[in-house]
Structures are given as C-alpha cells and as structure tokens.
C-alpha cells in the first residue's frame, strides 16, 4: 500500500498542503478525490497549478480512485490523498481501500452543526461520516503542521 497520508482539507491543495505536508511526508503524488471537482476542468487546472514542481497529481471521482488504488497503480509511489469532505473517505474505505490514519486539517462549513476548532467546523453529515470512519478503525487526528501536537480528532468532536 502506498498511501502515506490522508488529509481532509476544505481548500484541497494550498500553502500548508503543497509546501509543508508534501515535503514532510516526501509525497510523489497528490490525489484529490472528489466527484464534483473531477468533473470541472477549471478546478482541475487550478489544482495542477497549486501542485509543487516534481509532484504528480490525480483528480478522480471516488469510484475511479478506489479502482486505481486497489489495482496497485500507485504501489511504487508515495501518495497523499486529499478530500474536501469526509464522505469520500467513507466511500473509499467501503470500496476496500485501507486507511490507517486521517489528518483533519481545515474544514469550514457554511451550514455547520458544530465548531470543532478554529479551523474545523462540521455538518451533521460530516459528524456521521467521521464516526463511521472511526468505527472502521481509521485513526483520526487533527494537526495543522508538524510543529504542533497531533490531537485526537474524535475527542475534539465529542468535547
């Protein structure tokens, strides 16, 4: 399995992801999984621009992403999965992809049910999705950058 990191980030690829986590985790390919973004040429081009030189990018709908990963297409690469919404991770796990842990970075919801941290607010659906991931054995943590401590996301969600 070549998945080095998985991140929930409402902004997908931006400064923290492109400059910090890609370097820290020595990522060779960023995979954005989103059914809507994968349909939009403009959004895809924007993501390509934001991807650091030397790093490859896939923007895929969740079903295709799961197929590619399970087929071993990226086994020799260091993959960072980035999603805007946790529902795609639930679908990925249900399709049979194993995720060890997920970093919940930034998530700002207009129709938020709960504010978890400065950077994270969640809808009722998000909460249900995170609970499902937790029940499936995925370790969820929140860490904006490597110089701050990783916090247990499920504890934050419940507090």
């Amino acid at each position, binding site marked *: 399995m070549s998945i080095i990191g998985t991140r929930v980030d409402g902004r997908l690829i931006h400064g923290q992801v492109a400059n910090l986590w890609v*370097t820290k985790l020595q990522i060779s390919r960023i995979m954005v999984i989103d059914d809507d973004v994968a349909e939009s040429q403009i959004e895809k*081009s924007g993501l*390509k*621009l934001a991807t650091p*030189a030397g790093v*490859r990018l896939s923007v895929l709908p969740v079903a295709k992403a799961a197929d*590619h990963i399970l087929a071993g297409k990226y086994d020799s690469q260091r993959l960072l999965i980035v999603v805007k919404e946790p529902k795609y991770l639930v679908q990925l796990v249900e399709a049979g992809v194993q995720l060890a842990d997920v970093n919940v970075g930034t998530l700002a919801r207009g129709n938020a049910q709960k504010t978890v941290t400065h950077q994270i607010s969640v809808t009722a659906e998000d909460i249900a999705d995170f609970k499902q991931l937790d029940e499936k054995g995925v370790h969820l943590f929140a860490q904006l*950058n490597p*110089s*701050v401590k990783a916090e247990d996301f499920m504890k934050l969600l419940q507090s």
Partner: protein
Amino acid sequence: MAAPLVLISHGNLCVELKKSVELIMGPQPDIRTVALEPKAGPAEFLAEFTQATEDLEDFVVFADLYGGTPCNVAAKLLLGGATFKLYAGMNMAMVIDYLNAAMLGQDPNPVSGGTNGICDVNAQLQQLTDDD
C-alpha cells in the same frame, strides 16, 4: 540542526514575512527579525542586528534587498571577519524552502529556493498536462 534564520529588511517586511510563513509552516520561534525603522540609519541598525544575534554562534541571514542598508550593514560585518551566511532578495519561497530543508536534514540552497518560487503563472497555465 540547521542554523537559525535572521530576517532583515527595510521596515517591517521581515516581521510580517515571518508571520506569513507561520501561517503555512506553524510557529517559528527560532526565526529572528531585525527591521530598519524609517528614521534609523546604519548605526542604529548595526546595533540592533548585533544585539539580536550576539547569543548565536552560527546563523543565516536573509536580507530584503541587495544594496539596501540592512544588507549593506550585514555585508560590512562579513568584511570585518564575521562568518554568517548572507543572502539577499528574500521571499516567502526562500524562507519556506530553508525550513523544509532543515526539516528533512538537507543542506539548504536559498538562492534556488527563492528563485524557484518566481514564475510566470500565465505561461504555466499553458503547459498544464493531464496525468491521472
């Protein structure tokens, strides 16, 4: 352990650049800044720079502008025998590249780190290719 960074500039560029970098890289307590205040001259800047760095054995200085007072004052110290590294033309990419090299235990190259961050975005847009 990479040598600590000292950012120097005309006015508060260095202070604010540090803050901007922290938005991406997280808190950077080891980065020091020395700003040349509008009414200060080389003598005041030299005093502040010396004070800011006197407890450091080894450090790397990024200056905002080649030929500007902060850079010139630091360069004079080098001519007088100081041994720190001094780079001019600092930008956000240069600082981030330095911190990333430190994180990975690599030797930083601030000149390429800074210049790699400069690009013609319109031209880049023309060159985008698909690769899933």
